[in-house]
């Protein structure tokens, strides 16, 4: 396949950016999208240009590093991570626009790489169960009903890629935050910190500059792991419950 790529180039966080146009040829349908970009980068290096910077690591759809907006969609046309997108989703002669996640809480580092450390700070605010090493009772001491365990798992699948934020017209991180709140709050082990967890994580989310949620649902549509939209309403319920219970 022969393709025209229009790629966001930006030297660093301070510099202004712009779209640059490149042609690539000899692209196989079996290539992953990132392997297609590898091909472009090899050519750029040999031509003495700087390759396009992009985040990627496991290339198996689980680490959450890859983060491209492709033709206006976070992770592109399929419901998967960018690294699991293959060129068979495109046609010969296509023009493809490639941009970084766009959100004020995710400043651009270079080209297609953004800074998502705000997500880490939301987790640091309460996305954990305080269980210092060595304090645990036997794993079977507290049975967890299967539906609760399954629900916890479903939310724990979040890979922290940030597609939800990139897809949201408000740049909101509600789906990400709610996934962690619901993973931990549904478990008996998470109960003692249930209220502080949701209050502190939501407060940090707001402080980090993420937008408000208007339940447009773009986040859940873009999520490569299928975190469901009702996750947000469940968190809102948790938050309301906590504000009534905890006087701060």
């Amino acid at each position, binding site marked *: 396949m022969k393709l025209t790529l229009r790629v966001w180039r930006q030297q660093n966080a301070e510099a202004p950016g712009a779209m640059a146009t490149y042609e690539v040829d000899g692209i196989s349908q079996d290539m992953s999208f990132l392997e297609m970009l590898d091909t472009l980068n090899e050519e750029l290096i040999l031509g003495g240009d700087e390759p396009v910077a992009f985040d990627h690591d496991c290339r198996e759809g689980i680490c959450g590093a890859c983060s491209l907006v492709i033709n206006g969609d976070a992770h592109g046309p399929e419901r998967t991570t960018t690294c699991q997108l293959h060129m068979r989703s495109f046609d010969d002669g296509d023009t493809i626009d490639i941009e970084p996640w766009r959100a004020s809480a995710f400043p651009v580092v270079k080209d297609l790489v953004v800074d998502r450390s705000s997500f880490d700070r939301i*987790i640091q605010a309460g*996305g954990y169960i305080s269980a210092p090493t060595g304090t645990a009772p036997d794993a079977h001491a507290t049975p967890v009903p299967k539906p609760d365990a399954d629900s916890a798992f479903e939310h724990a699948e979040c890979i922290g890629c940030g597609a939800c934020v990139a897809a949201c017209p408000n740049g909101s991180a509600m789906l990400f935050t709610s996934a962690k709140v619901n993973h931990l709050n549904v478990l008996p082990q998470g109960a003692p910190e249930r209220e502080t967890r949701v209050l502190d994580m939501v407060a940090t989310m707001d402080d980090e500059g993420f937008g408000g949620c208007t339940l447009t649902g773009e986040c859940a549509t873009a999520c490569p792991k299928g975190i469901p939209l009702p996750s947000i309403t469940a968190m809102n319920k948790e938050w309301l419950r906590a504000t009534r219970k905890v006087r701060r």
Partner: protein
Amino acid sequence: MPDLSDYTNYRTGEPLVDAKAPTGPVAERWDTRRFEAKLVNPANRRKHTVIVVGTGLAGGSAGATLAEQGYHVIQFCFQDSPRRAHSVAAQGGINAAKNYRNDGDSVHRLFYDTVKGGDFRARESNVHRLAEISVEIIDQCVAQGVPFAREYGGLLDNRSFGGVQVSRTFYARGQTGQQLLLGAYQALSRQIAAGNVELHSRTEMLDLVVVDGKARGIVARDLVTGKIDTYFADAVVLASGGYGNVFYLSTNAMNSNATAIWRAHRRGAWFANPCFTQIHPTCIPRTGDHQSKLTLMSESLRNDGRIWVPKAKGDDRPANRIPEDERDYYLERVYPAFGNLVPRDIASRAAKNVCDEGRGVGPGGQGVYLDFAEAIERMGRKKVEEKYGNLFDMYARITAEDPYETPMRIYPAVHYTMGGLWVDYDLQTTIPGLFAIGEANFSDHGANRLGASALMQGLADGYFVLPSTINDYLARNPHTEEIDAGHPAVAEAVAETEDRLNLLLAVDGDRTPDSFHREIGELMWEFCGMARTEEGLRKALGRIPQIREEFWRRIKVPGTGEQFNQSLEKANRVVDYLELAELMCLDALHRAESCGGHFREESQTPDGEAARRDEEFSYAAAWEFSATGDAPVLHKEDLVFEYVHPTQRSYA
């Protein structure tokens, strides 16, 4: 440039006689060691700083636990977030001798299985400790909220895995590594918020600082600004993972690399059993030259999937057109007791053999079928979906084939490295104050790792072993002398790092870092991969110095060092692969026996199994660095088996 004979003409130095494991009954050694270790008073711990490099299962759990104990921790990861370390990609599960199935499991059986699975090339004391701790790991992870699979009664589910006959593997669908890593990441996040851990993400260790013979810090590069900085501590812990990416194509993440351990090796940490690499039997075959990495399909698939190839050579009919009696379920045929669940090294070699015979399937004949038709008939599609759904989806996405309809095609790929920095029972390297944990060390898996044991070892080291042993070092080595960037040893390490990066930028040649990585990787796969011969290894050893020389003449790295520069990062990692590859080949050449993942064609049983030569090779080979391209010095640690008598492994 040294010629080949120089590098292979290594000297055997003094043996490693004391690995610091206590004597006495194996089941009491860990208690004994913990009791004998000196402790640091809780009030004094905050005065000690520990550097932890890496945030995977080993590093994340170690950083969190050391901080909980009261130490000041400085932690590094090259990813943008600690949550992305490659442990995240482990699929299948984690072993623990809980015996929740009441199927005859015990600590002793896990110990036995691991020593045997490792083909009698691991230290008994370490493996027994690992088996003991396995039980506590599950408790710890459940307390953290790790959502393991559960049954309708609310209790934890288990499954079986290759190389064993009990169900002792705990799992979270096909995402066990991710869930365990998030547990460690969250514990670490809690300590970051508490101010006990100072995290540097997007920061890569490029050298170790050794002062007066002790590890005192690291040189690291901020990958965003390019700034090279030094960090100091009372002890340094490397949890930087394995070195499988030396092969270019592997199941490792793209950025996983060997620089931290290799630089430590150059500074005096001996490197043990570098040739022990694991080739995982169930990966998705490559599709062409553009392939950048390989994707693993969890070994748990072998619980229900049946592996086969056509009986006839060159049979290119589609799988569903090949009648049952023309299929060869070769693992079930040759190993009736374990069937499709033989250990990884055996399953991988068997796949290679049938492909070499011309019976492979798919493009280039580099594949075998993993068929779920029988499982779907037996359990129903729904149950198969529940158990393996996400793996099937992943396969379908990559290959555009539906594994519910057509059998999967799989082929072996480099997956894990059992070798690593030599460590004693305390997980301390040969540099005092430098510890190595998880895949970065060589300690527990011998010549072959059993499935679901990497997660177990990473977490055992990080949550339980290191936090109990590092106290002893810190208590005995109170550092009164402060060091800073002006110290000659520090200035030297920084200058060397800067010179290396500047040189990479200055060559301005005509080949990309990736092209060299691919070249060394292909060479290693051909000559130091699934089957090795003296002739092939000598060939590789002749070629590697030439590639190295060409690298420094022709490498091209655009941009500058004072910026985010992924080409520079890559090129610098390739520099180290080009040295490590040489040591791997030398180790493989010197070990003229087959054991576990190391298969020397000259040493096999009449029916083609790996033939160990215990009289000559029952030792761990620890290599001491001398200079680039110069022969290293071999130090042997003899392995003594008091409990598990070495036998020819049999899974028939």
